[in-house]
């Protein structure tokens, strides 16, 4: 009930926002409306871009892929370029919201490494719609004062050696994905036998698990309430800032890789300016500035090559190739499969 009231409130406030904002979006000739997640670009970059090109940037923010999507569809603002996450990009491409970019108009696009274009194929099979921006992994954050052995496999979570001291993910997709990876299957498997096998494993693991969290995991580890936890690399970075005894590892079996990319919308009038902007983001000096501001894994190889050796050795920032080889990007699963997962998850939670 609470959730629904929130939703209704959100809808009503969206309508209000639409009312106040209509009236923007004129003089599109030399302006570019950029839509991105909050705090997800170095603001100085926008100034440099305006200075160099004379194009005015109107910058808009959203907090989650879902809010970004509904704001885009509300249609009161004409967004020219958007940055969002893998599964939402897949949806937008399927629904025809994005247009193909012209690779020949780009000067710096080759800075984006081949590996990342390959990962993008999970949601943009022809690499014609989206340009990788940042990415990250799901891995294990552990307390080096409690865990002395090497953490390099998901097995450490399932063999009972840290019973009562581990935090798993309270997120259906991530739980099944890491378990499927541990079993050596694809995270995008449609084989229900493989999914059932993963189910048995997480049910058996439940007594050993201290708690299932998502956002709270970083605090629990930073305060020393658990020995290890499964976490997104971005959160791991925050936790490690709070407690220097923490370390992050991506298991050798591979993991779920998330990716945020840019695309040009079908509403865009000034494709030229949009492409200039996206090319600008790929430029080495700009990408470097941006990386140092956000500190997520960058797909820009020029930036990676130029990195401080210490930073480049950090698996959280630059996952080694042999780990990346085993990673996959989650695809939008079919409704039937989603329902299958959902029922298993409820059964698992009820145990």
């Amino acid at each position, binding site marked *: 009930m609470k*959730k629904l009231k929130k939703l209704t409130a959100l809808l*009503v406030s969206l309508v209000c926002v639409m009312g106040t904002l209509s009236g923007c979006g004129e003089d599109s000739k030399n302006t570019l409306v950029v839509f991105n997640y909050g705090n997800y670009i170095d603001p100085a970059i926008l100034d440099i871009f305006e200075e160099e090109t004379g194009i005015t940037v109107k910058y808009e923010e959203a907090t989650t892929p879902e809010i970004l999507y509904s704001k885009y569809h509300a249609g009161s603002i004409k967004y020219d370029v958007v940055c969002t996450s893998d599964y939402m990009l897949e949806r937008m491409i399927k629904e025809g919201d994005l247009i193909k970019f012209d690779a020949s108009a780009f000067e710096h696009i080759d800075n984006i490494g081949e590996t990342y274009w390959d990962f993008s194929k999970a949601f943009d099979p022809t690499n014609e719609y989206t340009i990788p921006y940042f990415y990250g992994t799901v891995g294990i954050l552990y307390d080096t004062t409690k865990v002395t052995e090497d953490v390099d496999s998901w097995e450490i979570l399932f063999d009972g050696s840290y019973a009562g001291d581990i935090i798993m993910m309270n997120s259906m997709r991530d739980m099944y994905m890491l378990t499927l990876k541990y079993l050596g299957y694809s995270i995008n498997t449609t084989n229900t036998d493989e999914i059932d096998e993963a189910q048995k494993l997480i049910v058996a693991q439940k007594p050993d698990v201290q*708690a299932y969290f998502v956002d709270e995991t970083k605090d629990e580890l930073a305060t020393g309430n658990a020995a290890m936890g499964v976490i997104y690399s971005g959160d791991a970075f925050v936790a490690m800032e709070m407690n220097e005894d923490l370390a992050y590892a991506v298991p050798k079996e591979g993991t779920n890789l998330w990716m945020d990319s840019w695309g040009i919308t079908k509403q865009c009038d000034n494709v030229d300016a949009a492409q200039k902007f996206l090319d600008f983001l790929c430029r080495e000096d700009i990408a470097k500035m941006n990386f140092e501001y956000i500190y997520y894994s960058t797909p820009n190889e020029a930036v990676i090559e130029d990195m401080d050796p210490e930073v480049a050795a950090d698996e959280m920032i630059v996952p080694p190739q042999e780990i990346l080889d085993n990673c996959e990007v989650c695809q939008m699963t079919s409704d039937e499969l989603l329902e299958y997962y959902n029922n298993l998850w409820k059964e698992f939670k009820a145990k």
Partner: protein
Amino acid sequence: MKRMSRKHLATPYVFWIICFTILPLIYIAWYAVSDGDGGYTVENILAIFEPVHWKAFVLSIELALICTVVCLLLAYPVVLILRRLKIKKKGTIVAVLILPMWMNFILRVYAWQVLLSDNGIINSFLGMLGLPSINIINTPAAIVFGMVYDFLPFMILPIYNSLMEIPNDIIEAAKDLGADGFTIFRKIIWKLTLPGVISGITMVFVPAMTSFVFSDILGGGKIQLIGNVIEQEFTTSMNWQLGSGLSIALMTIILLIMALLQKSNQQTKGNNMIW
């Protein structure tokens, strides 16, 4: 004319009720009976009887009942003590009891997570005194604890109000007629505060029954209540039909329970405090 103008004053409230109570309810009911392909079905509502959902539902009832009983046992004596105090002190104590409500509800739940955790403040304090630690975090006990803490004021206030309405004369008259303390409590105080008790029970039981934050945060996500199931249907699995069906089933059952409570109340006194 005067009557008319007074009616207009209610317009904002009517608007509010329509937008935020009636329309959402209609939406929910509509989702609950639609099958997603344009047809109609009762399956989503009957889904409450599926073993997984039923288990979560029964567990929710159990925890909500325990929480309500604990709140009542804590609240009633406090209110009895309050009645005897001088007016000035009374105000201060009631203010202190309400004070936690000024802070954000979720924030207070997070605070209990920090306090109750195995390496938390309470356990390090117990350790300092050489006492054994309490390990209730991530168990149903922690969930009940959090609910009692958050909902206790909702039990105290209605009972406090109904108790304060009892005139001293009645009690003195009973004493004059030779009633002892226990008889006075049983025959006068308890019966006259019953409407307050019932509205207290309603205001504690219903939110305790439907919440999902306590089990996610204090239960460590290991315990599935019916609120968690509904939340999940709306968020991760995007099955609004099933989520709405379960909500409607839950609402119906709660209404039935409340109607029964209400009936037992009306046999004693017709005065309704909440509906």
